[in-house]
């Protein structure tokens, strides 16, 4: 090896780079904004006063999944287009990279950063930094993120949505004279396990001897694994399937359609879909919650440091809708949701005592 020439190059280049680094204080496109004046706390939405409103969206999942995460972007786009704002989604984000991406968005001078799931909550550590000063933060918290003064969040309860979904599935099982349902999801995460538990509890409220076959494929978007899981469940005699998935949802439902097995949606309203048919839409779409927050943002009334809790039977979402209800199916599920809203049905107790 020609050591001296190469080594000299390396040893000259590295300190030079470091010296350059020490000399630079600006943060790129938008300037560093270190210690910059705080943007208006009220009178949103152009909080940084750069003449345009930009909404940054951070999503751990695929925002083209035709479901949960896509709804987050689609619903934001509807509000943004109506107001002449720009939406910048960053999807498939690794949680370990969340802070860096949040900083990058701050450097791009966005006015609001929406964090698509609590798994990316580490992004919020950038909120107090000078570069992010004044930026509004919204978190689709689901089960909730520890509240601070820097962000607002939407919360719902997995027990409510999934118990109601299970109740609807129970009605479908009863109608088919069957007792076996399938539940296919990705990694064996806490929320997915809790969802299965709530779904089963709801199902058993209608069919007490109902059995839920649960499969964790390890990946919300891997259609091949999800289809394989469905085939295995079909062989065990399921009559209803709940693909609690991301990008792989439609692949499973199309197989279910071919096999005459009813399917439920994991978050969005797909009743109008004519190619992939769902029997029940279980609607807990983060897009609906986010759209409401963006409406408040547009009016200048979105308050940081607060959480909005979306309750079944009280708010329009979350909700469960039969696409082609038979008999009193929709009335019965409506009553269950209403009972949750009024507190007559203690859904947490119903789920915890399910097994």
């Amino acid at each position, binding site marked *: 090896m020609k050591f001296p020439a190469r080594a000299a190059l390396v040893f000259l280049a590295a300190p030079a780079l470091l010296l350059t680094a*020490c000399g630079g204080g*600006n943060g*790129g496109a938008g300037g560093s904004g270190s210690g910059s004046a705080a943007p208006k706390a009220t009178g949103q939405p152009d909080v940084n006063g750069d003449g345009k409103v930009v909404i940054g969206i951070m999503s751990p999942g695929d925002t083209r999944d035709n479901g949960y995460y896509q709804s987050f972007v689609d619903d934001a786009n509807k509000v943004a287009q109506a107001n002449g704002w720009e939406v910048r989604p*960053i999807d498939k984000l690794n949680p370990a990279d969340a802070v860096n*991406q949040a*900083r*990058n968005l701050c450097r791009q001078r966005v006015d609001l950063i929406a964090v698509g799931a609590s798994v990316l909550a580490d992004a919020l550590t950038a909120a107090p930094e000078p570069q992010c000063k004044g930026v509004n933060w919204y978190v689709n918290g*689901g089960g909730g993120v*520890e509240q601070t003064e820097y962000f607002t969040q939407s919360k719902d309860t997995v027990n409510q949505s999934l118990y109601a979904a299970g109740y609807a599935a129970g009605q479908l099982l009863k109608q088919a004279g069957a007792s076996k349902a399938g539940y296919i999801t990705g990694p064996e995460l*806490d929320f997915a396990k809790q969802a299965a538990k709530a779904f089963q509890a709801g199902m058993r409220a209608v069919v007490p001897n109902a059995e839920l076959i649960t499969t964790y494929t390890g990946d919300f978007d891997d259609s091949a694994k999800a289809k394989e899981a469905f085939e295995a469940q079909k062989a065990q005699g399921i009559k209803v399937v709940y693909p609690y998935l991301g990008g792989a949802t439609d692949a499973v439902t199309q197989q279910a359609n071919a096999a005459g097995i009813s399917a439920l949606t994991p978050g969005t309203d797909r009743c109008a879909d004519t190619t992939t048919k769902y029997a029940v839409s279980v609607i807990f779409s983060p897009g609906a919650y986010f759209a409401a927050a963006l409406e408040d943002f547009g009016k200048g009334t979105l308050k940081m440091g607060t959480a909005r809790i979306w309750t079944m039977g009280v708010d329009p979402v979350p909700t469960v809708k039969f696409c082609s209800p038979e008999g009193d199916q929709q009335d019965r599920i409506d009553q269950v949701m209403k009972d949750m809203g009024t507190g007559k049905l203690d859904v947490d107790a119903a789920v915890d005592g399910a097994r």
Partner: protein
Amino acid sequence: MTLTRPGARHADRAPVRSRLRTPLLYAVSFAVALALAAALVTVGGHSMADALLALYQGSLDGGASIGQTIDETTPLLIVAIGAIVSARAGIFNIGQEGQLIVGAAAGAAIGLFVPGPGWLVGALALLGAALAGALWAGIPAVLYYWRGVDVVVATLLMVFVAMQLVSFAVNRDYLLQETAVEGQILSPQSDLLPEGVRLPRLGEYPDFNLGTGFVIALAVTGVVAYLLRHGKWGFRLRMLGLNPVAARRAGVRAAALGGGALLLSGGAAGLAGGVMLTGGVYRIQAGFADNVGWEGLLVALVARNHPLVAIPVALFFGVLRAGGGFLASTGVPRYLVSVVTALLVLAAAFPAAYAELRKRRRPAVEA
């Protein structure tokens, strides 16, 4: 005036051509990659000039960007140095992604559960991370020298086992999962490391700021470069890699030296995981490795197994990682960012891979 022998002019032309071949290959390679990237970005409705500007702004424009680039470079360099050590011994460890995440998980366990002063626990976390990475690489080493299982296959398969193992650990509250908070669904991640355990940072965001892990990376690189070039160990290692039969005849114990190189390689990957953990991420998550292991391996390939050359190459990869993240925040879709950065990585890796292929095809006499 110099006198030349007949035929000497012809003989001199070959080395000139040979010397020009590599820069030309790089030029063509990058030109093709940029053309393809430009076509894709333009078809996607964006401007290639803006994309390149964003790549620059995110990686080299200003203190925060340069700090971010060096932070991204640090683990890549450590992984690459480990890969170079094993490659010099003729052993191809491609399981750094797994060794890195196992190392980080071990570092997290030490950082979270071992009592003691922060600096000591931090140092133990780094040491533990390196040892765990070495141990993970040790399994293929044992399989190879004991049962002849191919190292490439074994190290690769161990990556998937490592991913599942860490995913299991961060989903169990009795192992590494974060502490439960009333009313919250837990995420698949550990608690944050205590502040005292973390590697110190120079400067503060958004001004120039930098994790001190780069000092570790440079120290590891310097030591390995010196030992490989001047040390007896390095000489034996190179001999083993170049001709195992001759090395054995010369008294080199292949199992000890080769196995040791594989352990060192895994240890370096584990250390890289420890540096990422204590230097910036501060908690272990299922997707923690984030392709750093694979890209570190590419750094070694592009650097053609020269430790000092690995520094600028790792820096180039760091630029792509830092700039790619920034590019995504400008509104260019993430998938397009991935394609653009992958094309540039391919452009960097292609000439080295081509040269390696040529070397293998060349008749033994020529070599």
